[in-house]
């Protein structure tokens, strides 16, 4: 068992880190422990944000909230829901998928930049993050950004901390932008398209002035595992979400359905089904199958998604579905993660990145879970890491 530190205040955390920076102690930062991509290596201690919890400010009229990093995501979403607001980037919840236990924290959400279906039009977690307080690797308490929507005062450190997977600093508090919950939502479903046709249909939808806020393709192999098996039509389901004022969703839904009729049979899902369906898409629900079969989250240019899957299929057993207009793939391998093969094809198809989000522990330990960086970028990232954490107190797999 590794030691777990649970500082009760930002100051206490800073002292711990400061002492560590002068000794050989090494920390793995932990929020709820639900998004961690590896078990802490030998000789490291866990530094938990659990006791740094609580919403410190919520101003619905200004659409901003400030919370300590260990605040459970559920608490934040409940507070927002009370005022009919939400996190625009729809944070993913992969617990069912990875079998992780515990409560996801807001700090972990930002540290992993965990963004769901709306991301490809409304931005990622990093785009909602306005300001941070953090303890750097020297044990100094630093603040960056602020609580206003527009701020270019100095370097945007909040951006680089978002998605840094605990490699740079212990984030103690986050201030983020929130948005009103849309009055209503609907999903237009086109049935029976193959992956390439679906890519064309989704591109067509995105070219229309209807503000699609979710574009996913659920091939036949997975469609039965969405919406309790009740998706309308035969074969694959290509689904497009519309959100907004009731009057405008009605108008846009008709326009979109009319355009997409050329691709295949079209039907429409109501607000309630829409909500449940996109939650399942967000959390890659079909792959919460109780197994530890390797699961990848792959980001490529939207038009490359189906080409990648087609290429992989010729060489290995793979099951997949698509979000972000085809630019986000959830790929489940039969047995081996096939990291080298996958990354070779990603590169050949114009580049992107593959993150291994699930596998047996020994496979996770042996596989580079994050996309390896080009040499010059890796060198630069190492310099940036050193500028936050010169003695390497924070251990993470993201930056060596």
């Amino acid at each position: 068992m590794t030691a777990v530190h649970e500082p009760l205040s930002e100051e206490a955390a800073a002292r711990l880190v400061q002492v560590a920076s002068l000794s050989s102690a090494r920390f793995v930062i932990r929020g709820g422990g639900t998004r961690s991509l590896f078990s802490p290596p030998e000789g490291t201690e866990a530094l938990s944000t659990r006791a740094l919890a609580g919403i410190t400010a919520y101003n619905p009229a200004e659409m901003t909230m400030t919370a300590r990093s260990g605040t459970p995501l559920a608490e934040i979403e409940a507070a927002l829901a009370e005022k009919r607001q939400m996190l625009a980037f729809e944070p993913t919840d992969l617990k069912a998928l990875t079998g992780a236990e515990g409560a996801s924290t807001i700090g972990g959400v930002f540290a992993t930049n965990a963004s769901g279906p709306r991301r490809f039009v409304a931005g990622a977690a990093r785009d909602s993050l306005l300001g941070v307080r953090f303890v750097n690797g020297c044990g100094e308490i630093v603040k960056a950004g602020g609580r206003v929507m527009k701020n270019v005062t100095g370097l945007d450190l909040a951006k680089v901390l978002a998605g840094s997977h605990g490699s740079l600093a212990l984030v103690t508090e986050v201030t983020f932008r929130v948005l009103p919950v849309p009055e209503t939502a609907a999903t237009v479903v086109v049935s029976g398209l193959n992956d390439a046709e679906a890519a064309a249909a989704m591109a067509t939808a995105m070219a229309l002035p209807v503000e699609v806020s979710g574009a996913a393709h659920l091939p036949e192999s997975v469609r039965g595992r969405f919406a309790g098996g009740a998706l309308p039509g035969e074969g694959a389901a290509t689904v497009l979400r519309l959100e907004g004022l009731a009057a405008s969703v009605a108008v846009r839904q008709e326009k979109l359905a009319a355009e997409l009729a050329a691709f295949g049979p079209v039907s429409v899902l109501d607000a309630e089904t829409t909500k449940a369906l996109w939650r399942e898409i967000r959390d890659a629900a079909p792959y919460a199958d109780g197994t530890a079969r390797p699961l990848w989250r792959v980001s490529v240019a939207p038009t490359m998604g189906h080409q990648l899957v087609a290429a992989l299929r010729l060489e290995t057993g793979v099951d997949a579905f698509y979000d972000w207009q085809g630019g986000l793939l959830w790929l489940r391998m039969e047995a081996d993660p096939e990291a080298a093969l996958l990354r070779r094809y990603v590169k050949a198809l114009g580049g992107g990145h593959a993150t291994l989000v699930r596998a047996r522990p020994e496979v996770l330990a042996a596989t580079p879970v994050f996309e390896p960086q080009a040499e010059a970028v890796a060198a630069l990232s190492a310099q940036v890491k050193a500028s936050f954490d010169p003695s390497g107190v924070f251990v993470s797999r993201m930056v060596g």
Partner: protein
Amino acid sequence: MDQIGFLAPRPAVLARRREIVADLLDLMPPGCLVHEERELVPFETDAFVSYRRLPLAVALPETTAEVAAVLKYCHRYGVPVVPRGAGTSLAGGAIPQEDAVVLGLSKMSRILEVDYANRTATVQAGVTNLSISDAVSADGYFYAPDPSSQLACTIGGNIGMNSGGAHCLKYGVTTNNLLGVKLVLIDGTVVELGGKALDAGGLDLLGLVCGGEGQLGVVTEATVRLIARPEGARPVLFGFDSSEDAGACVADVIGAGIIPVAIEFMDKPAIEICEAFAQAGYPMDVEALLIVEVEGSDAEMDAMLGKIIEIAGRHGVRVVKESQSATEAALIWKGRKSAFGATGRIADYICMDGTVPLGQLSHVLRGTAEIVAKYGLRVANVFHAGDGNMHPLILFNANDPEDAARAEAAGNDILKLCVDAGGCLTGEHGVGVEKRDLMRHQYAEVDLAQQMAVRAAFDPQWLLNPSKVFPLEGRPAA
């Protein structure tokens, strides 16, 4: 006006001026180096015209390889470099210094690829902001961030400053619309950050470079997000009896969960200046004006406008005027977007750029009026109200050094007021030299030290745009 200091020129660089010019001539094709004193004058300042410095030379490379060669050379010989787009910075971000080579991107102005299926455009850094939207508009797309200077400013400069614009309330600023860059580091290394795939795998270095004010590297290419143009858009004018009423209305509209594409604010002096310039049909008998733009189909616009009009009614709106034609809509925006230029025709001005929480708008507007009155100056307010990004234009006479000093002092007081109200020094124009010495008002020493450490990770010798952003005293030894 010469209150703001620049770094003292490095004597060793000045002494080698002729050699440096000769070497740079060799690194680029003919016609790419400006070095005659007379020809350097157009580069001595940007839109923050109170300050000027003649650079050592101006390099205008045509390729990424040439940019890399110039940087590598300057790195080797310790020559400062000031990247430059169109030189429209209002914060002095592109003002050179005597020992610096200006690296201008103006010859790299091609649109390299438009990819509608992936909704991206890849362009060279010297492309102007507006030309991206112009290139794709016939096909029904646009590039969202729209600084008022969009006819002139470059995408490289937009990335440098993380620029915004009127329509950013809904679509976000540059950083939210930027997918990738080709960046040349100070030692000449070329790196690609991001691309058409979202959320690149490692650290979000792209997020640092955007808003890096030319201190982290030189952007030579960018991939940006295109958006399908809405079916229709309609700006509507709302006139109020006081700035307080208008400010409170803005806070209530946003508070009600309504996010139009744009909410722009003008006070009476700004209305008069812009109307005289553009004959946009602004009401002249009100104290404050909001331009609220909604978009979508007619039915959608009607629905949203109905809600906004109702809220405005609660704040005693006196005039509601919808644009009746595309021509009228264009005029309304022309008036707003020429606000700075039109102001410049009647007086010298400096433009502040503090952002405040929406609930503080009225308070800060009142405080601004008091500060400006205290210094015996005039002010016109025209700004992006929906996101609290204020632009008081302080009017003064540049030929009167005392007047100029008063304007600068008033500006500083206003920015401090913004910070104290929970806001920040600059929402979209950048720190440059203008706000550099106020940074300590917003950040503690340790906050600045962290930013400087990150900056130094990219450019350990502080050669890139070194006089900007961070106060000159208290910097780490390079």
